[in-house]
């Protein structure tokens, strides 16, 4: 109906139609061609989008378990939450590394972990000396030095994790 109306309206204008422009029949033919192509193009695009969505949903559906686990683990252990207390922080790092082995296997991390283990041994030795000699000023100073280093190493580990 609309086409009919347009054709009539265009035909009424034919007398004043400029000569350098294509004839109305030619134009209508082109419009018709375009109309036939467009729905085909849309169908293709919609089909591809649907396929991509399908692939995405299938992939998401197939590996949901791992993702969920990671989310749960991250909720339990975040490096930023490493406690300020050195003893608790060391326990925290050990637990974190049990669950995130790949993160804790870099050479830099291993080096820091080795240093941290050394401070634990040194602190144990100083504590034994303190037990033997009581609150000796030189031993208390030694303990503070080891604790300071331990805190610095924990800080470095925190940055890596």
């Amino acid at each position, binding site marked *: 109906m609309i086409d009919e109306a347009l054709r009539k309206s265009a035909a009424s204008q034919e007398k004043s139609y400029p000569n350098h422009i294509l004839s109305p029949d030619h134009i209508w033919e082109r419009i018709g061609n375009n109309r036939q192509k467009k729905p085909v193009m849309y169908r293709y695009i919609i089909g591809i989008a649907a396929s991509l969505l399908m692939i995405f949903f299938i992939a998401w559906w197939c590996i949901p378990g791992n993702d969920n686990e990671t989310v749960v683990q991250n909720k339990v252990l975040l490096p930023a939450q490493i406690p300020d207390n050195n003893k608790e922080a060391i326990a925290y790092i050990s637990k974190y590394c049990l669950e995130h082995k790949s993160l804790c296997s870099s050479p830099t991390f291993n080096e820091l972990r080795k*240093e941290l283990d050394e401070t634990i041994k*040194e602190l144990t030795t*100083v504590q034994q*000396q303190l*037990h*033997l*000699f*009581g609150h*000796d000023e*030189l*031993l208390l*100073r*030694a303990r503070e*030095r*080891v604790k300071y*280093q331990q805190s*610095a190493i924990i800080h*470095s580990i925190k940055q890596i994790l």
Partner: protein
Amino acid sequence: MKNHIFRFTPLFVVLLLHLYTTKAQTYQPVTNTITEVIPCTPETIFSIHAEKAVVLLSGWKNNYIQVQIYLSAVNADKKLAMRELNYMHYAITKEKNAVELRNIFTLPPAIDKIYSKLEVKLVIMIPEKNTLMITNQYGDIQLKGLTGNIKGNISFCNLQIEDYAANTRIDATYSEIKGVLKKGTHVINSKSGNIDLELQHVNALTINGIRTGIQIDTHGVNDYRYQINNSNGNIILPPKYNELKKKDKNRYSLITQPGTSVSLVQINTSFETVTIK
């Protein structure tokens, strides 16, 4: 009258407590002082193996070693202090060109705790040019007026160096090294420590540090050339050297080459700051 007595009773109690604590603070230490004189030659190597001791060592012009050993024990119970004073021992051995001084703590088998405050102080004079080897753990050391070769192995110590022109090699852990180095070649390996030195015409200084903060006062930075590397820590320099400071990822470095005839200051450390003044 009764009311007055009750009113002043707490005051008396506080006064008695105060007298008691004041008395406790002024307990006289039980001491034992020993002086030993050991003849030696310029070739004699003097070794000190100290444990929890304060070592004050000076060089002198005489040709013998003098060792003064101060042992003290402080406790409210004088008998206990006297008994525990005997836990501290020392030994001096002489063999050809070597003299060795050693202090140790020896406890009876059943004892696993010491109740007195025990102190060992070694005041030592040695010929200034003789070779010295010193080890100490949980103590303080002062070295003064020495010009020979010195080898040290210290942990949890404060080492103070004064008027010192010896050739040095020191391995230090958790220790603080402070003082003035004059002439000589010095090598310091330090882990988890702090080094604060003033240089006066040293031939060469090498510091290999791990987690060691380093401050060097050079009295005119032009007297030396520098090779400094610091990973995970900064290098603070006088303004004119700032352009030569380089940064590569987490490592700062400074290399200057004003001429090979100039003494070299070589520093490697990590995680702490290096300051050149």
